[in-house]
């Protein structure tokens, strides 16, 4: 199907159009208008509806990319842009969109540079949607790099006093990854004498020297996005310096692109050269997990604790993907769905707590006792995050871990230990926030989250619970 404007293109276009509308929308004023916010939220909701429609159109358990769209971009050199989705990419897209709605809720009252925030966020959403539907190496590369621009701009606008330093790190690591990936793409392009669909990578035969270089390049560029040692440092610095939940969310989603890259690039049957790389990666991965988990345990910054939780889980998913087990991939998709929503909610409400703490001029010990609705949501999210059966994290992590333990027991044990440590850190934080004896405020509920947000978050809790019962509960006949 050539040059047909179709549904996958549409889900890239909707946030982009939303961005354009937002650009021309009226800024929030004293009269309470929220045009910018409303347009942005509408664009995301519209895209969620489209994503749900795509779920209806596809056969969810069928392997391989579906609803493939091909656009001939250039004749000489011959470059085709190919889009396609499978259940993994769609689940991730749905989770990201829901996380964006939660993020927008977190910044709805933040009127400073609101338009810029919404515009760049929607641009990021459009780019990352493109990234997840990209089915050829060229569009994959374009979207992989294009999504850095909005984050770069957001960091510059909303970062704290040390933002210059963090932007330097951000550029240093990401430029390194981008250049290496670009070289690998060009080499592959020349080697194949034309564009390459990602599915064809599975069958690609390379000569040994080229193979050695290309896989090293792809691994390093993908790893530059994932918080494994030493790449974790730029992500940690950026994440712990940002006090805007929406930008934290975006920077938290960025490592997902690296993880997803492994899903798309790793062949089903690994060439021998990759065996060494994967072993090294496994060692670095588990060491980073333990390392970050320990730092998260001792660090008093709540944001860092959330970051350490995010890191440990990302690495676990990465190691799961490296096993190249199709069933595990499906479970990772289901697990990721809950994981992204939980982390987004925790970050948004953690930011709310910090804001209230500043406004009330009190310590945050026991603060949740004065905010009953917030307390319910935050507790639910923390308990889900630590792995209790309240979301799809529980069952799907079980399967991922059982596979990883069977593959390598030592790696599995370190992973479990890291999970225990990050879970303990989150629980400890919850108890501190709910310690009634240390609460300096009375439970008036005056500054608690509004009834509307509470209802929405209860709906999100319901979505998570349903994902535990059946991950694809919203797909009829799945």
């Amino acid at each position, binding site marked *: 199907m050539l040059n047909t404007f179709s549904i996958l293109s549409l889900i890239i276009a909707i946030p982009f159009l939303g961005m354009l509308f937002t650009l021309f929308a009226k800024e929030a004023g004293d009269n309470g208008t929220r045009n910018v916010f409303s347009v942005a939220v509408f664009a995301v909701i519209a895209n969620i509806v489209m994503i749900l429609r795509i779920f209806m159109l596809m056969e969810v358990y069928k392997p391989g990319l579906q609803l493939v769209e091909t656009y001939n971009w250039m004749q000489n050199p011959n470059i085709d842009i190919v889009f396609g989705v499978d259940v993994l990419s769609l689940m991730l897209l749905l989770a990201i969109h829901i996380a964006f709605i939660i993020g927008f809720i977190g910044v709805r009252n933040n009127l400073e540079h609101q338009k810029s925030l919404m515009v760049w966020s929607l641009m990021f959403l459009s780019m990352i949607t493109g990234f997840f539907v990209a089915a050829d190496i060229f569009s994959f590369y374009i979207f992989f790099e294009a999504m850095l621009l909005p984050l770069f701009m957001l960091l510059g606008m909303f970062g704290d006093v040390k933002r210059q330093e963090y932007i330097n790190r951000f550029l240093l690591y990401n430029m390194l990854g981008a250049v290496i990936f670009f070289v690998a793409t060009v080499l592959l392009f020349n080697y194949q004498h034309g564009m390459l669909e990602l599915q064809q990578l599975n069958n690609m035969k390379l000569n040994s020297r080229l193979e050695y270089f290309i896989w090293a390049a792809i691994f390093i560029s993908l790893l530059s996005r994932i918080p494994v040692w030493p790449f974790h*440092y730029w992500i*940690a610095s950026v994440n712990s310096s940002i006090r805007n939940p929406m930008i934290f969310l975006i920077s938290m989603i960025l490592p997902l692109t690296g993880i997803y890259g492994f899903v798309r690039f790793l062949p089903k049957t690994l060439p021998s050269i990759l065996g060494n790389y994967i072993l090294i990666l496994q060692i670095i991965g588990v060491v980073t997990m333990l390392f970050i988990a320990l730092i998260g345990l001792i660090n008093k910054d709540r944001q860092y604790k959330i970051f350490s939780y995010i890191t440990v889980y990302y690495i676990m998913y990465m190691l799961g993907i490296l096993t190249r087990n199709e069933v595990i991939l499906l479970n990772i998709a289901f697990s990721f769905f809950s994981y992204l929503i939980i982390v987004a909610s925790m970050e948004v409400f953690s930011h709310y707590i910090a804001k209230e703490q500043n406004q009330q001029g009190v310590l945050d010990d026991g603060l949740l006792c004065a905010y009953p609705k917030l307390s319910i949501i935050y507790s639910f999210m923390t308990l889900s995050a630590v792995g209790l*059966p309240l979301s799809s994290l529980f*069952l799907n992590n079980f399967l991922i871990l*059982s596979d990883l333990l069977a593959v390598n027991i030592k790696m599995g044990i370190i992973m*479990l230990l890291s999970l225990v440590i990050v879970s303990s850190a989150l629980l400890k934080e919850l*108890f501190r926030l709910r310690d009634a004896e240390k609460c300096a405020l009375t439970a008036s509920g005056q500054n608690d989250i509004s009834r509307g947000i509470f209802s929405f978050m209860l709906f999100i809790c319901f979505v998570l619970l349903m994902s535990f*019962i059946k991950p694809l509960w919203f797909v009829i006949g799945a």
Partner: protein
Amino acid sequence: MIANSVFVLALWGALGSILVSPKSNRIMSFMTFMITSVIFFFLSKNYLAGTNEPFSFEWLKYMSLQVDIDLSSNTRKFEQILPIFLLSIIAMLVAVFNSEEMRKQRFCCLVALNLCVVCGAVCAVNLMQLLICSCLMTVLGFCIIDDMDARKKYAFYNLLADLSLFSVCSLTYGYIGSLDFKSLPMFDKLGAHRDLVAILLAFAISLKLGLFMFHNQLYDLSVLHFNRLAYLLFCSTPFAGLIILHKFYPLTSVSAYGQPILKTLSVLTVCCGIYSALFMNNIKEKTIGLVQILFGFGLIQLLFFSADFKVIENIILFGGAVFCLMLYAVYYASSYELNVSKMGGFISGNKFGFLLQMIAFFALLHYLLISFSGNAYYVALGFAAILTIVVAHILRQIFFGETHADERVLAMLKNPAWYLLFSLLALGGLLASFSYQKALIETGAMFILFVVCLIFYPLRKTEALYNSELVQESDAFETIFDFLIITPLTILGRILWLLVDFILIERTIINSLRDATGLMIRSVSKLNMFSAKLYIFYVLASFGLIAFLAYMGNK
């Protein structure tokens, strides 16, 4: 029948937990009590009729995983579920009528939900169903505990237990490829890392049951309302521990470590329970000590003598309930006096209560003595003697001798509330009904021992320990865990943070890269400076390079 009961209770419990209103507090809790009682009645009827009713629901059907939810009814399952139902009804009854319980509706609904989860755990035919039920019991227990300090250890210990169990299930499933309990014995042939599996399992069971070393989580619960404490002690996560032990029993023997660890811990738990029951001043901590003795004893009988699980469950559940109600009755009668050192001479205002307590206790002893044979019987006999001495010692301090109570307590001394006495009588009657004329001599001997202890009060010197801060306040295992686990992890975390993040990455890699970039920029800037000398130098250097290449080419 079990499936229907679970659906009704789940629906009612969920609705009741959400729609909490101060106006409907008592009515809703009473209705929950009534609904549970009616269900209990029908379950008992079905049990007596020997009903067998299969119920299996296909929950998940992945390529790699099939999980069915089983809630089939049969006599064996009824026997395991009915005691929990009875104790839950007693807990609800107390909650409805006790004025100290403020959030009646919430508590009763949580108990109803917990009953559903217990049914799920008992009926589980696969690892996943049991694992989920165990985790849900942790969540519900967390909600029942209405004190933040008490929640801390409970949550951490149970989280660790659930994660250990999670790991055991993951490992087992990874090797045998099935979640069915029937397939567990296959692990002995197909499995690897047996030591790890057995140790993790023993760890999970010990944490759930609150065995020695992990018992301080139970003692932290002593700040709760007596009724909540009693319920949590044996109907919540400790019961989950028992079920886990029962269902995972084949895995305890796949390694040389599993059973010895559990056996050692159960013996030490009995010792720890005796210590607490005798030396702790707080009446709630004494209760926890008595329940611990029962848990330890139950495990000894299960692990050393392969006793019938049903009997052990009855002893632990009914015995625990009897002890809780006995001491709760005292606590209630003395206007909520916590310290046993401030009691004594309560018999004058509390004769009826004492009599009922005696009946219930001896009914329990009698049941305990008739339930075992062979070597297990002698262990039970010795254990009954220990229990008699401990209980006689506690009751002696409370009911006889010189009173140490405040004037206010003495003036307000009354018989316990009707619902406590009724519950005690019901439990005593139930235990007595299990046997008629067997083991009467042994029970009589225990009675004599009891009277002797009451009269001669042989352990009177232990009273001095009530004033010892070391005994009453210290939490040795918290200090040990803190010293051995938490502090090293914290130090390691700090070292890694400073050494790796700051010194290696920030100061070495990033700064070096920045400096190198700066140096490169400076060098290139200098090279590009407009200068006649440099121009001549570049021209000469180019000639030199050409000459060198030409020379190398000719060579």
